[in-house]
Structure formats: structure tokens, C-alpha cells
């Protein structure tokens, strides 16, 4: 298995009439990655996922998923991927166990393997005790966990989770995130879409921010913050000092801007690398300015997101 990438797509495009939902994206997702798709509503995340999971055909471009072409080897792609769609996508008239049975049958799983896997997964997602209850009566979180179990039933190499935590209570959200991390730790490649910045930041190793059908930014959360976060803030609460200090600080720290807000000095810098904090504290010590408190904040992913996609409301 020389293949390095779990997912590889080039000039990936989908048009709906005049609307271009996905506009020629190029993407590489390595095996074993936990990759996040971020983007406002209608950015093209779900369309991209649907194409990668063979539910939609691209109008242009191509993609290899788990080593197979999504157009010519759709069935093979399906056998290698697991999907947790945005909607429930299971039979509410069937019990949890029956749903898994049906899906397993359609994956052509052997009877005993299917039984074993179903029980194992229901235990993992904490639904084993509810296995014989109609899913109609399940809560949103339970449905989502069952959906994850259904996506994992045939032991896929890649798991797609399309906004799995949207609309769930905090407990369910945490459960889903923990499960995702645990699964990724076992070696499954995970593609995760969300518009929860905090979640993406905590969970994903690499992120692509989509907007208007194309990928606007891509990298690790840290890289993105460095690049698009608009810099770090260093906040200083200082003892008595003269008015010149701010100007001097700006030069010393090579800051973009230094301001005073409610008695707190705020230094905006692009990067905190190169022992910057040390430089600042040495400078202040030399000036005999007392540092009462010092705080440093990284830019949030939300800032990155807004910077990349603008504040305009979508939908």
C-alpha cells in the first residue's frame, strides 16, 4: 500500500444549474489524518462530502478516495468509507439493532461478523441497552451515536462526519468528539465538517476553510492562526511609567500597534517567536517599570474564520 493519501481530489467541481456549489478544489488528505472542513452555511462543505462519498457526481474534476476513483469505482469507494450524514438517515421504524442489521446486510457482511460488530459498536456508542428500541423514540444525541455506529459497521478506512454535533446538547457533543478522537487514534482517517470553531480547533489536526465553493485557507489550526489570526495580543498591567514607554515598546517588540485600554497596555504582534516575551520583560526591567500582570492571547480560530470568510451573513 504505497498510497500516501486517503483522499486526493483535483479541480473538483459541482454545479447546480448556474450555481457553482464547489468550484474546482484541490485537496489532499493523508491517511490517518483528522481533517476538518470549516465554512459558513452554503460554503460547499456538504456538497464536497456528498461527492467524496459517491452520493453526488462531480460535474468536473476527479477524486480518489481510499485509492479508488469515485466515478469508475463507486462501489469500491463505498465499501471503504463510512459516512455519518447530516440528517439521521436511518429507519425510524426499526430498532437500533435492526438498523445495523440492514446496513450490514447491504454491505454484504457475514452474519456472525455482523452480529459481533453490531454489539461491539452499540457498546462503544453507549446504546447497547437500547438496542431493541425503535429509533423513532431516540433523542438527537442517541440518533447521532447510532449513526456513527452505522458508519463504522463495515470497518471503513475513512469516516466522514458531516456536522455530527450540530443541534446536540453539550454532553452528546463531547461524547461524539471523544469518540471521534478515539477512532482517529486507532488509525481511521476522519473527515469532519463543522462550523463550530472551538470544536474544530480542539479536534482537527488539519483544517480547510471553505467559502463560496473553494478552499480559502488550509493548514493546522496553529498555522492558520499565525497566518490569518491578525496576530497575538500581549497585555501588560504596568506600574507608573512615562508616555514614551509605549513608543519604545513598539520598537522593542517590533509590534504592529501598541495601545492603552483602561490602563492596560496592549501590544499587537504578528508572532511571539524568537523570545519576544523575554525581550519585553528584560526591556521593562531595565526601564524599572513594574509589571503587575502579564497576559498573552493567541488569535482564535473564529478570528481566522472571520478574516478568511468576512462577516457577511450567509444562507
Amino acid at each position: 500500500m504505497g498510497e500516501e493519501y486517503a483522499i486526493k481530489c483535483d479541480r473538483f467541481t459541482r454545479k447546480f444549474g448556474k450555481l457553482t456549489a464547489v468550484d474546482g478544489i484541490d485537496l489532499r488528505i493523508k491517511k490517518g489524518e483528522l481533517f476538518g472542513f470549516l465554512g459558513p452555511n452554503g460554503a460547499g462543505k456538504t456538497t464536497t462530502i456528498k461527492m467524496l462519498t459517491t452520493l453526488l457526481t462531480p460535474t468536473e474534476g476527479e477524486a480518489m478516495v481510499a485509492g479508488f476513483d469515485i466515478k469508475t469505482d463507486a462501489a469500491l469507494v463505498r465499501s471503504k468509507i463510512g459516512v455519518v450524514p447530516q440528517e439521521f438517515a436511518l429507519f425510524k421504524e426499526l430498532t437500533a439493532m435492526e438498523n445495523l442489521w440492514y446496513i450490514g446486510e447491504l454491505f454484504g457482511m457475514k452474519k456472525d461478523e455482523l452480529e459481533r460488530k453490531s454489539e461491539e459498536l452499540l457498546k462503544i456508542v453507549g446504546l447497547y441497552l437500547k438496542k431493541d428500541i425503535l429509533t423513532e423514540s431516540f433523542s438527537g444525541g442517541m440518533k447521532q451515536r447510532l449513526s456513527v455506529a452505522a458508519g463504522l459497521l463495515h470497518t471503513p478506512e475513512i469516516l466522514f462526519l458531516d456536522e455530527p454535533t450540530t443541534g446536540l446538547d453539550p454532553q452528546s457533543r463531547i461524547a461524539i468528539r471523544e469518540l471521534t478522537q478515539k477512532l482517529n487514534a486507532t488509525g481511521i482517517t476522519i473527515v469532519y465538517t463543522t462550523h463550530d470553531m472551538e470544536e474544530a480547533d480542539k479536534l482537527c489536526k488539519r483544517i480547510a476553510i471553505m467559502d463560496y465553493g473553494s478552499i480559502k485557507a488550509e493548514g493546522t489550526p496553529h498555522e492558520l492562526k499565525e497566518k490569518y489570526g491578525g496576530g497575538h495580543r500581549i497585555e501588560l498591567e504596568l506600574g507608573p511609567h512615562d508616555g514614551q514607554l509605549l513608543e519604545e515598546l513598539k520598537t522593542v517588540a517590533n509590534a504592529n500597534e501598541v495601545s492603552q485600554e483602561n490602563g492596560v497596555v496592549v501590544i499587537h504582534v504578528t508572532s511571539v517567536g524568537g523570545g519576544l516575551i523575554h525581550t519585553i520583560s528584560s526591556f521593562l526591567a531595565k526601564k524599572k517599570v513594574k509589571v503587575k500582570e502579564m497576559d498573552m492571547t493567541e488569535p482564535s480560530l473564529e478570528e481566522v474564520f472571520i478574516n478568511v470568510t468576512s462577516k457577511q451573513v450567509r444562507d
Partner: protein
Amino acid sequence: MANNNSVEKTLDFRKIYAIVKKNWMVLSSDPLRLRVLFIFPLVMILLFGFTAGKTPKHIPAAIADYDKSEYSSIIQAQLYSNELFSISRLVGSQDEGKKLIESGEVKILFVIPPGFGDDINAGRTPEISVIIDESDPSIAQVTRAFTRVFIQGVSNQINAQRVAILSQSARGFSQYLADVRTTAADGRKNDQALANVYAGFIDAKYAASQTDRMVAQTYSKMRNNLGMIFDPNEIVDDYERNASTRSATYALLTASDAQQQTLSQMATYRGFAAVGDRIARDAATIYLSSKELYLSSLEQGRQLAISAKIIDSASMKAKDLADFADSIPPTAISLNEIEPYGSGRPGLDFLIPSILALIVFQGAVMGMGRAIAGERQDGSLTRVFLTPTSNITIIAGTLLFYMLFETLRSSLVVFAAVIIFGVTIKGSLLSILFLITIYAAGATGLGMVLSVMARTQEQYMALAMIISLPSMFLAGVFLPVETMPPALQGVTKVLPITYASDALRGVIIKGFSLSQVVPDIVFLCIFALATLVLSVLMFKRELL
């Protein structure tokens, strides 16, 4: 290297089984819905069972009798005594009668043309004209049907009269023979006796030829009558097309029995004519042997006894002939006494095939909304699409389930019809099952086509309405097809429900075997195949 075929077979029977089982599990998880699905056909059959078979009575009518013969009075008497018509007027002319129709006072005018009785006596086909108020098509239907029965009844009466005459002739012949015997015994050496024997023979021969002629005439009369007898199947079809002609059609069906009777009578008469011939030959033998005997027994009178014996045996034959003629039952038809055809609950037998066809169609078309469109809408189809399962397998599995389910439901209708209403099923149950199955395949296939076209159940229902409502009304189940404009009648020719009704009617009512409804089967099979191919072609494995 693996390929698509290793994970996805075009037709995967294990997966098809899983799809069938899943659909049953989904359906049975909602007991209320399941019960309603099974109760619906029962409700339909109960409704039809108790409302069908109402027949019109006392339709106002008039008679114009130009003939005024013995036979025309028989017809008048028949019309008067029939409950279907109420003869309000005896008019002098056809024009007078037409005016009554125009004024709405009567709906029908029966015209007995001049020479009607003469036609009967001469062995020609007599005619009765009927003028019908066409503004009421159902009455027009009833009257047309009734008139056919009527003429059949009259001709049967005439036949009965002729048989009576025949019987009388035979008796006369028997008497002549007895006379011959007496004469032969008494006048053994007398020339005069021989002359008497000869005269007796002449008389006997005449009687025999009379008999013969009579037989021939009656026979040809019957043949004429047969000319206007019709195909019993046509009657049943006629019945199906118009609910209100039912009563008259019962009569027609009985007329068909009368036809069978006439045919058997004809066979009898043919035998009768042969007997007449033999009598004539016997008489000649009697004459010759009597003459011979007379000559030879001038000295040997005892041989005369043998002659007497031969005469006796001829006499016996003549007597048998007379008895035989007597034993032919006169066939007088009275329309009031006609037994209802079938189960005694008039109408249901005839409607069962159509009800069945309707229930299967409605059930299949309405039920298929859940199948693909519904699963597309609630998202569960997504999950199926994410598995390596071919479109053909998905469609085949879904169709198979609904086909089996509809067949089960329809079997329940047949069962209910037999148990609750005592409907007689003349054909084989297996044939019915076969027809229902191929028909259900087509109906569910049609539902499938609509289901793959629609994105939501609401869209599906809108599409299904366009298809199922016309089928319901154009199939002639509720309204007679004849009353529709020709363009709409043409539409019925392409509806599967028309062919299913026709085939089921053939098997259930007429006791046809499958080989007798091959055209219907061919249409239904082509329809099922076409819908299957179409749904596979139209099936889009895309989720927007």
C-alpha cells in the same frame, strides 16, 4: 486488484431478501397502518357487496301491434307480465308511440310489425322493433338486452307448439297401424283385406311424411332462431360494462341456457326424423309382407299370425314415437321467473374481478410513495446509497416486497368474497393468484416509476393521483365505459386495470384457464417489464 463487481453484484439475491425483510419490518412496526392496509380491501368488498345489484323496475313502455296475430298476443302478454317494464299504453301506430317517447311519458316503444305471425309460421326469422329513449343510456342498455331474451323466449314457445303437433301425428299413425292389424287378422282370404292393408299403408305413409315434414320444419325454425342467439360471454361483458343492465343480463344468461336447450332439442328432432323414416320403411315392409302372406296363406292361415306380430311391433314403434314426442318438455319462458345468476347476491360475482383489480392498483400505487420517495425524503435512502448495493438490486428488492404484499392483500379480498358473500369462483385459484401477481408487479412498477420521479412523498401523491384517479373511473368499475366520450373510451384501452379486470373476470366468472386470457397476460407482462425497465432507467442515485 479488486473491482466493483467483487463488492457489488448487479443482482444480489441476499440483499434483495434483506430489502424485502426490512420493508416488512418497517411496515409491521406500525400495527395500525398495517391493519388499515388490510382492512381497506375488506371495507371495499363490503361496500360493493351490499350496494351492488340494484336493478331498475317498471320502466314505462308502450306497444304498437301491427300484426294482431296469435303470436303477437303472446308477446303482449309477456310484456305485460314482466316486472322490468310497465306497459302504460297500447298505441295504434309507431308515430304515436314516438310522440309518447318525446313527451317523456314512456321510455320504450315495442313495435310488432305486420307479418310477424306469418314469419313464424313460414319458418322465417320474426322481428320485433324497439324504439328506445336514448337520452337514458342505462335504460337503452336494459331494453336492448331484454329484447334479445324476449325473442328467444317466443321462439321457444313456438317450438313447443310444434312438438305438440308432431306428437299428435305420431299418435294418428299408431292408430292406423292398429287398424291395419285388425283388418289383416279379419280378412285373411279376402282381396278386400289386402286392399285395406294397402290403404292403411298409404295412410301410414302419409302420416309418416307429415311427421317428417313437421320435423324438418321445426328443425329449420330452430336453426333460424339460433341465428339470433348470442355468445354468452358477450352477455357477461355486457353486464360488466353497465351495472344497470344487470337484471336484464340475468335474463340473457338464462336465454343462453335456453339456447343450449334448443340445441339439444335439435339433436332430438334429428333423431325423431330418422324414426319417422324408419316408420315409413316399416310400413312398406308391412304392406309387402302382408301381400306375400296373404298369397301364401291362402292355405296356411297360421302364418297370418306372424304378419299380425310384425304389425304389432310396428305399432309399438309408433306408440314409442308418440310417447317420445310427448316426453319433450314444452319450453315456455317467463321472464319473471328467471333465477339470479351466480351467488344469489346479484352483481357481486361480476364486480369482484373489477374490485380486485382496483384494490391492487390503488394499493400498489398509493403504497409505493413510501418506497423510494419517502425514503429519499426522510434520508434513509442515503444510508442505502452509501452501501455497495446496485440500483437494480434496490429496485428489485423493493418491488418484490410490494408485489408480494399486494398479492397477499388481494388474496384476502378473494377470500372475503368467498367467505362473506359466497361468491362462486369458477376458475382455478392458482390462475387468479398468477394474474394478481403479474398485475401487482405492473402496478407496483408504475408506483416505482412515480416514486423515483418524485423527491418527496407529497410530490409522489400528486403524481399518483394523476395516474390512479383516471384508472379508477375509466376502468368501468363505477361508471359504464359506454357512457363516456369515445376519446376517454380509448384511454381505457391502455390502462392495465382494464386488462386485469378482463382476465380476472374470465377466470373467476367464466372459469377460463390462463390459456384463454393470453392477450391480457401478455399486456400485463409487457406493462410490468416496461415499468421495471423505466424505473431502473429513471432511478437517480443522487442526493441533492
